[in-house]
């Protein structure tokens, strides 16, 4: 649940979500116009991951950088090499556990490793990476597993919501795979890949929508009802 107390945070949340709502659909649109949408499972589509990586990195810079007042006080704004190394290892571990988890859920075990790897790296990129970039390894682990309400600001809240929705999107994407329609987009891992992206996108759209509604609710208290409803729905826990 977002609070209206910290206007600055709220603005950052809104802007970063809006940015996501712009850059992610544009990537998908360009890729699909190029006719490459159905090759997202191949290693050749690695550039999509790189693009998303860069975008998320820029976003996290934006989210962290203007967080002057608090961030400077808590820890130095300097990025250490050891931090980066640790985050990198942590990302690799997450990637591997996603890889194994997806296989356990039913992905082919003996073949299609490339496709599964692409999917798991996408999911790592969309779920854990923004969290780490925002709040470091330990804090993000604590956010994900364990103490629920520890130092949770609106930004972290949004990021956790995003990652949950991404996983849900990938989960729901798997629904179309068994259907016997024989379409090219039912190939592993395209539905899960696109599902993860759309889950992420949907989460961002919801965030923007919620913030707009909340600011509107200040003027028109009737809307509070919808906000509360959205809060209970969106915040899956």
């Amino acid at each position, binding site marked *: 649940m977002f609070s209206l107390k910290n206007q600055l945070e709220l603005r950052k949340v809104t802007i970063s979500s809006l940015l996501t709502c712009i850059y992610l659909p544009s990537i998908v649109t360009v890729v699909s116009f190029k006719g490459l949408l159905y090759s997202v499972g191949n290693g050749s589509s690695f550039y999509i991951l790189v693009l998303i990586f860069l975008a998320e990195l820029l976003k996290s810079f934006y989210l962290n950088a203007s967080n002057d007042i608090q961030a400077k006080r808590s820890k130095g704004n300097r990025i250490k090499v050891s931090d980066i190394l640790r985050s990198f290892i942590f990302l690799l571990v997450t990637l591997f556990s996603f890889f*194994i*988890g997806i*296989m*356990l*859920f*039913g992905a082919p*075990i003996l073949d299609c490793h490339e496709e599964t790897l692409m999917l798991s790296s996408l999911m790592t990129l969309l779920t854990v990476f923004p969290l780490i970039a925002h709040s470091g390894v330990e804090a993000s682990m604590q956010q994900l*597993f*364990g103490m629920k309400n520890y130092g949770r600001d609106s930004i972290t809240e949004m990021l956790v919501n995003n990652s949950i929705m991404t996983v849900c999107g990938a*989960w729901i994407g*798997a629904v179309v795979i*068994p*259907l*016997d329609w024989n379409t090219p987009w039912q190939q592993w891992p395209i539905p899960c890949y696109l599902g993860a992206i759309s889950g992420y996108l949907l989460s961002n759209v919801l965030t923007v929508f919620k913030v707009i509604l909340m600011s509107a609710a200040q003027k028109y208290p009737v809307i509070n009802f919808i906000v509360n409803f959205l809060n209970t729905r969106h915040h*899956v*826990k």
Partner: protein
Amino acid sequence: MNEKWNFTIYLVWFSYLILSAALMFGRGFLLSRKTLNDITDCEPLENFGCDGYSKSNLSDVCNEEEKIRRILANPGSEIACAPTRQRVVFILVDALRYDFTEYIPDLENPLPYQNRLTIINELLEKWPKRTRLFRFMADPPTTTQQRVKALVTGSLPTFIDASSNFAALELQEDNAIDQIVRASGKIVLLGDDTWARLIPGRWLRSHTMYSFHTWDLDTVDTEIDSKIYKELEKDDWDLLVAHYLGVDHAGHRYGPNHAEMTRKLDETNNRLKKIIKMLPPDVLLFVVGDHGMTETGDHGGESKAERTAAFFAYRGSGFGGDSDSIKTGKEVQQTDLAPTLCAALGRPPPAPCLGNLLLPVLPPLPMSHTLLHLSNNLKQIKQYLIRYGEESQQIPLDRLAQLINATREQIDKAATIETESELSIYVTDVRALIDNTRSLFRDVWVEFDSLYMMRALLLLLIAIFFNCLIAEGLPMDRIPQIFSSSFIVSGIIALTVCVTMCYTAFYLDLIEDLEHAILLSTGLISGVVICALVILHWNSITQRWYETPLLFYERFARAALIGSAVLLVSNSYIIEEGVCLSFLTLSVLATIVWHIRTIKAVALWACSGVVLAVSRSYRGCREEQGDCWTQGGGVNSADPASRAALVLALGSVAAIVAVARRHIGWRGHGVVVCGLFTCAHWAVGWGNLGSPSRSRLLARGAWLVIGCIFVLLWREDGRGAILPLTVCGLMFYIGNSLVLGVAYAPTAALALLSGILVLYIVSTMKNEGSTKFALSTRCSSSVACLWALMASYYFYGTGHHATLGHLRWAPAFHAGDPTYLPIGHEITAALVTLELFGMPLMFGAALPLLVLWGPGSAAVGPRSQLTGVFVLSLKFTICFAIRVFISALSATIHCRHLMIWGVFTPKLLFECGACLAAFVGTILGLSLTTWHLSTQQRQS
């Protein structure tokens, strides 16, 4: 404390409600064809006068040709017997697929079944006039008994017959055999006793043998061979029926790609050579297959390979038929055989027949005779259309009237045919008309009794809905009180009154269908009683719902269960159900683990994921799964188990017995003996060196020990219910491994393992709150849904598929052939059922462990424990009931679907079977718990 049994009684009551509704649905859904007792009869030509009327007073003398012309010109006349009669040798080679008979020249590496029946090709090339080879298309279901029925009646079989394959009933309808007997024809029968059971007492001589010893490739065939040549020399018969089983049994046991199949086909080849050599030139020889087989050698479904049988005909002095219709490999329908056989023997087609005459396999006939046969065929069909319209409203009247008129027109036209070219056009027209009629009936015979189906769905819905309210709504602490009140007693009294009233009404002839009345009234009255209970306690139910908000994993588990049921509406999900169920199970487990959030829980989750992933390799595939099927994923029943499989099976049983025996006290010895017997049974029976008889003896020993332990489970030792329940689960595990056989035995171990893992996860779930809270957590719906999903998954995990073709009969014979015993059929049925639904049974029996397992459970009293077990059992069975309900609903929705018989109906049947097994297992588990918990209380 006799009220404690009230829980068990209630569960039995609930299971009765669900199963009776399912039975009622089956009666409306699976019965589809109305059988008429009409017979066709014909007047001999001598009885006709020259004006074409039978018993006419005209005393003119005219020749046969003129007489037939007159009869044809008079469309209202009776059916006249054809004047010529042939003798026919009818050889049925069970499962003779068309490509067994095909000869492909220059084939470099022929498969074991290719190019084996060389005699057919030789004859085709040498004497094209004397031989015919057609594709003989069977209608599903392609099981032997249905095919024999269809062959002799010329009609289409219904699905319900498929399930009564082991208890053949006498054929009630008019058929070719009866037709021939009625004209005092003599018939000799050799071979499969299905014929003798279907049509008893019509045979001049019959030498039949029991046909379901599917592992015995030769006895029936050699028995026929010892008789058939002598019979061929005699001439006191008109029809000789010989039914060879070897090819079918070779297919069942080894599959078509095996040297045994080559041997059986070579034998058939030599046999045919010899028969054709001995055959008098004017005798017709029909060699047909009743169905084909899949690449694993099974049959029963509706795939092309199962439906395409071969039809080979030979006559020393040649056949008729024009050039177009005699092409080798043309498709003819199996319904065409009955009228053709009858025509060859000078009889009209049997009354329910919907087939065409096959002129190309009849001797050359003069045109008037051909026309007479054709008009007989049309008249019989017209008669059938009229009678069927009178007896049943299945077919819309306008379509029926249209068909009758078209048939009349064709009958009228028969008199105007003069030249050969006109005749051939006429034959084509008649064929098109009859095909049209046949396809109309085929559509309509998938016609259901919608009233029965709707009532059954309503009863299911009532039972499930109110029991959901009871299981979910009633507060846990009030349940013992409610169930020890007069509720159960009044329910039983209501049911008794109902049944008595139904009997009285039946006795007074007020109602006709007793069974239906009892099912309907008891279902409704139970609904009313349970509804009354819900209304009485509505306050506490709403209060409980208000007070306890649902956690996310609770909601998710319910949604997953409902989702798994809703998936049964789509054929592609049914085909891939194994994948879907494992996906959902793992997801539910993941949300529970997410809720617990400990490293141990995550590790347990990963382990169960790995177990599920390993069981994936045992999940074969069905025919609809194209890629997997063509890669040979379906071919596993045919080959004997490999050495690695034996080692795995022995290792799994040994490991589980070794680990388990330490923890279950004195019962451990029984488990060890049982496991030893099982391992010895496999080891001794393995490979070519093994001794099958000793192996069977050992299997019987294992079953004896299992039975003894089941009896000993009821010995009270005052140490609670956990040990007996564990032993019960282990016994089911060993029983399952026995019937699954060497190749699939490790899957039972996997199922047991994942059950134990889930047990641990659930007991972790409990530890975080206070004891009272823990009890309600442990018997929450999410646990029940998870357990039900797992039990359903392991139907697939043990290598089954929801198709009739995947039924494995081998388990019925692993401990010797039970068919010689007086209760042989029951044993066969029980073993096959255990093999299919052993997993729901095992999970159902182990269900109380979910509540009782772990150290904390002793903190609550036995009374609350029992209540918890009851609530969980009820929820678990409701899960299965929901699945049955949805699959019945989807069968109703899809009753005109292309895949209704291939996908949805088998799924419904298997779902009902799983539900039954779950009920039996749960009731067993609950009563064991009740039995043992009471002891504890008496002591305390």
